[in-house]
């Protein structure tokens, strides 16, 4: 068997073995033409207006409705959990109309398609997820169908949803807009600040790694536990209570 000291130079030698593409001579000119194109300029301006509008709605409504103590707790979470919370009076999303969680992938293939460490509950009663999906922004979502211990959320037949997303940078921040009559509890999960949101449905928006605003209104929007651990944002959605959610968290283990 080859030893480690001889393997590394061979892997390095692949640089000279690959038949690399070379940039076409007009690449830089095409980039500039695209930048200077009026149509792409308009698109960018529209994007900025949308981003500003979303930020304004979340922040302003949050300031209006949150109590001072809650605002302070939420501000603490901003950096710790990568989630920013505000209140909204917008109509609640239709629960479970279409989950649209991304492309279905095999549970055994999760490791192959994402570049962060994904974890799954190891509780024997829960078992492996009934479905795993890869979202457009690299989010891995596992779902378990309803059963006696996992009542269905809303109009769906899903009893539990666990979504995991790598936290790319300090700018990669989630915004969560929640309605009035919703209980928000700040707590600690796996040694990190976390938040439990129980009550009316929520709308989640976040900025992707290029700071494009992305809206997610198609989740279960049941009770939600949000926390960040090991550079990964976790979102656990269930109709169950906080205690049952924390019991699931305790069984999480890396897939490999």
């Amino acid at each position, binding site marked *: *068997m080859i030893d480690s000291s001889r393997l590394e*130079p061979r*892997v*390095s030698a*692949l*640089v000279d073995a690959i038949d690399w593409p070379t940039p076409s001579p007009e690449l830089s000119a095409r980039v500039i033409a695209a930048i200077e194109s009026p149509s*792409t300029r308009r698109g960018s301006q529209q994007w900025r207006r949308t981003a500003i509008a979303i930020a304004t709605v979340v922040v302003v409504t949050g300031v209006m409705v949150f109590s001072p103590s809650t605002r302070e707790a939420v501000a603490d979470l901003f950096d710790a959990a990568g989630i920013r919370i505000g209140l909204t009076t917008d109509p609640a999303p239709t629960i479970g109309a279409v989950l649209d969680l991304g492309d279905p992938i095999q549970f055994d293939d999760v490791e192959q398609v994402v570049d962060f460490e994904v974890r799954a509950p190891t509780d024997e009663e829960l078992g492996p997820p009934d479905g795993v999906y890869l979202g457009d922004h690299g989010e891995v979502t596992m779902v378990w169908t309803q059963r006696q211990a996992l009542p269905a959320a809303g109009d769906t037949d899903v009893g539990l949803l666990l979504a995991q997303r790598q936290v790319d940078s300090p700018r990669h921040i989630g915004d969560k807009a929640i309605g009035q009559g919703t209980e928000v509890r700040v707590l600690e999960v796996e040694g990190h600040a976390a938040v439990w949101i129980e009550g009316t449905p929520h709308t989640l928006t976040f900025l992707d790694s*290029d700071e494009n605003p992305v809206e997610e209104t198609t989740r279960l929007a049941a009770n939600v536990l949000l926390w960040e651990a090991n*550079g990964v944002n976790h979102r656990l959605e269930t109709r169950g209570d906080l205690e049952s959610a924390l019991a699931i968290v305790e069984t999480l283990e890396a897939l490999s």
Partner: protein
Amino acid sequence: MEGRPLDERELIASAQSGDTRAFEQLVRIHQEIALRVAYLVVRNRSEAEDVTQDAFVKAYRSLGRFHDESPFRPWLLRIVRNEALNRVRSSTRRDRLAIQAGRDPVSGDAALSPEAVVLTEEESRQLLALIDDLPERYRAVVVHRYLLEMSEQETSEILGVPPGTVKSRTSRALERLRLRLGDEFEERP
């Protein structure tokens, strides 16, 4: 413009002020490595060039959020990689990387140092196939550290993981490759 050529910091500052000619120079400086980053993800030459073009446009749009004290290359290549990943996420098929044909280590360049390694075509294909089969988090660090010849720090910044994680994943990836190679990868003298 007469005088000395602008350095990268000056080009970035000019581009941030809306000077597209300055940005065009930045494109020329980084287009080769950007294209390689895209190609390693999408595995198709023409699509890699499309991805690279779109990523440069996106980078220009995002220049206002680039901070002077940060290194530019990893910031740019991160955008390229994300753009490429977005293109392939809906595809389950991944083509193999193209290998240069007719490589023969026996007739190697006399200028090569005694430590230099030249892989045969078959060895290259075999090793690349094993790298492709690694879990993505290991494959990504191997690709950036060895195929793109990036430092741990740059790899860390592009992948968005701490340098220590790059180091440990690299070590685990090499160990996995070593075990998978087993006795099949015969060592030439």
